């Protein structure tokens, strides 16, 4: 790879090929910007690829009523009639009729391929070592793949973005955690909605969905410790064992199924449970979209679209101001 050739120059360099970075690359190309996406491993391998795959609006139900969100509260006999497989302890449900789910293993790589087809340069196995602003341009140094230059850099490096922002003088109090995921052997497809327990007790908050292949994918409860350096998150078996009685309470009928696989990933969490999105408060040309607190999958393509709009037009119609990194700057009250 030629370090100084013009081939390594673009309008925008995106650091981190998760769902946010890959979709931003696609939407920037649609806006006619040249893009280089740098990914240390393969596109969609970390948080984007290992999460639950929820596409839901339940979490926002409180505020969503004003936006005409159609949630249905079901209880009693009606709940039993419609969902006879639910355990006796389930008293009430809030149904989002058009909620759904998608396969995280496929989505981000598909955006990466779409970005590639649209003309973005997607450089996998390219680890970013340093990002420096030199004059008007950013100079991005990589391991064994030379230097890349662009006037604009978008950092979408998930849990690893924190260290990069800190180098630009913008520390954020993010912590890296791993979701505790698992999947059962396949059984005939029966459970149409995604199910999740709402409870103040974190160990009770399991959730699950059945995929068309028949397997039941589940998660929830306590999160795992992760290691940002080894880039691998191992699920804690204690958490798996804690999930089992909760899953049996929710769906007694699955007690005799077997778990065939568990996994985790590495996600960035911020203390106010909101992501960092928008421009840098300190460095012109620098943008961030990271720290989605385990809820990034369903909004990933929208994040890419908004970031592309922001970078292309210097503004966005989407109200992302609460997500700005300046909320963590010294002297600011932390939310």
């Amino acid at each position, binding site marked *: 790879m030629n370090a100084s050739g013009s081939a390594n120059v673009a309008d925008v360099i995106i650091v981190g090929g998760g769902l946010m970075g890959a979709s931003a690359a696609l939407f920037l190309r649609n806006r006619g910007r040249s893009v280089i996406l740098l990914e240390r491993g393969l596109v969609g391998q970390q948080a984007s690829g290992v999460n639950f795959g929820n596409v839901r609006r339940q979490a926002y139900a409180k505020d969503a009523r004003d936006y005409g969100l159609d949630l249905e509260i079901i209880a009693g006999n009606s709940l039993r009639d419609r969902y006879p497989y639910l355990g006796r302890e389930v008293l009430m449900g809030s149904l989002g009729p058009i909620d759904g789910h998608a396969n995280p293993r496929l989505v981000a790589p598909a955006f990466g391929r779409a970005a590639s087809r649209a003309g973005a340069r997607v450089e996998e196995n390219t680890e970013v070592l340093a990002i420096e602003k030199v004059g008007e341009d950013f100079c991005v140094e990589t391991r064994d793949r030379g230097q890349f230059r662009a006037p604009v850099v978008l950092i979408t490096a998930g849990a690893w973005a924190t260290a990069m922002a800190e180098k630009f003088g913008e520390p954020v109090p993010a912590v890296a955690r791993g979701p505790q995921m698992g999947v059962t052997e396949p059984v005939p497809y029966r459970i149409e909605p995604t199910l999740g327990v709402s409870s103040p007790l974190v160990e009770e908050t399991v959730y699950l969905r059945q995929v068309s292949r028949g397997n039941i994918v589940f998660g929830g409860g306590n999160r795992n410790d992760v290691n940002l350096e080894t880039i691998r998150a191992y699920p804690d078996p204690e958490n798996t064992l804690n999930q*089992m009685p909760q899953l049996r309470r929710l769906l007694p009928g699955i007690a005799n199924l077997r778990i065939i696989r568990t996994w985790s990933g590495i996600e960035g969490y911020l203390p106010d449970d909101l992501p960092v999105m928008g421009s840098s408060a300190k460095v012109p040309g620098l943008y961030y979209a990271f720290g989605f607190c385990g809820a990034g999958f369903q909004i990933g393509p929208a994040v890419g679209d908004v970031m592309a709009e922001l970078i292309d037009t210097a503004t966005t119609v989407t109200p992302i101001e609460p997500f700005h990194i300046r909320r963590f700057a010294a002297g600011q009250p932390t939310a």
Partner: protein
Amino acid sequence: MADPRIVVVGAGPAGVRAAQTLVEAGLRPTVVDESPASGGQIYRRQPALFRRSYETLYGFEADRAKALHNAFDGLANQVDYRPDTLAWNVYDGVLHTLRDGVAGKLPFDALILATGATDRLLPIKGWTLPGCYSMGAAQIALKAQACAIGRRVVFLGTGPLLYLVSYQYAKAGVEVAAVLDTSPAGGQLGALPHLASRPALLAKGLYYRAQLMARGVTVHNGVVPLEIEGPESVAAVRFRDGGGQDQQIACDAVGMGFHLRSETQLADLARCTFTFDGDLGQWRPETDRDGRTTVSGVYLAGDGARILGADAAEISGRLAALAALTDLGRPVAGHRIEDLRRRQQTMETFRRGLAKAFPWPAGLARSVADEVLVCRCEAITAGDLRAAANLKGAPELNRAKAFVRVGMGRCQGRFCGSAAAEILAETRGEALAAVGRLRGQAPVKPLSLAATRETSS
């Protein structure tokens, strides 16, 4: 200071000798084994009330089997023995187990993994038909239950087990319709200098073959398997013989295996570093000659570390235990280690001979037809895998698994992983090592959601 907590996983030749060595040093190890009785696969014991003699069950190995069984039985009061127990995860210095639906935890200072091996399989058209078994399964049916997999059986594959199991079936009175070895006879001759390092074992191999001949069993070398024919269950095997002629042999069962592969999931979950072994075309956990892995306190022994067979497993079990004792600061006589290492070296020479005599038929795996199922759990064909590699760009095996579900089912790729790696490498025009290996994920084997926790640990 309290005695160190040492856990041995597996009660086959390696696990038993490791436990015995620890007891001799005055310790009380915990031995976790998936089987109801010690002995491992090779010296598997028959169920209660079965009355076959050691000679009937184990042939030439009767004395060794008896010695191993007696050795372990003699430890009864000196080990914490946990049969029927699955070790499903290793995390943070704790082995996680499951017995009778109850999940338990065993914190350890040293962990010796003697997890053995399973058949290395190759997808062949029709290999998922009822009546098609792995070589190991065919042998277990005979040893454990005195059952044959069929009335007229073809054994297909390569490796020393091919001849041993065929011989055992013939001796038990089952009609062995043919023995089809994918390795050419010439390779076996060429390997003789290495194989001569263990003359007794070489002699046994030749004996099995001679016995098969004497019983009128046809042995074909250098075959290309074409199809296991149905339609509803196994009815025949079609193959190309060493001379290039297509042949068909009627049968009602097939025993199939291409030597063995180490069971390494626990080592993987313990976070041991794996390296690619070019001789075997397999990834295996890195160990020193005594069985130390790259993870402090975790040791490997027996076929779970590398396929050297039962005698070598006994030696490596002792070596791993002595390594653990040394690392825990216990006195160990240096000459004992030296002596075991010397004997192990002979085994290693023989292993190289076996690899030469019975090579893994990588070419057959690479040329598997598109419509053939590779991953049985998820019903993924070779064509599905090739398409994923081409259209979606899967540069390594875990990516292919994510895209197309190969190796994503109940067995986690233990049975399809070898072939899937070959197919992916071939499709991408790369060396086998470049496509990596399927990462191990807990649980090692399926874990019932009904499992409950131990009330006190």
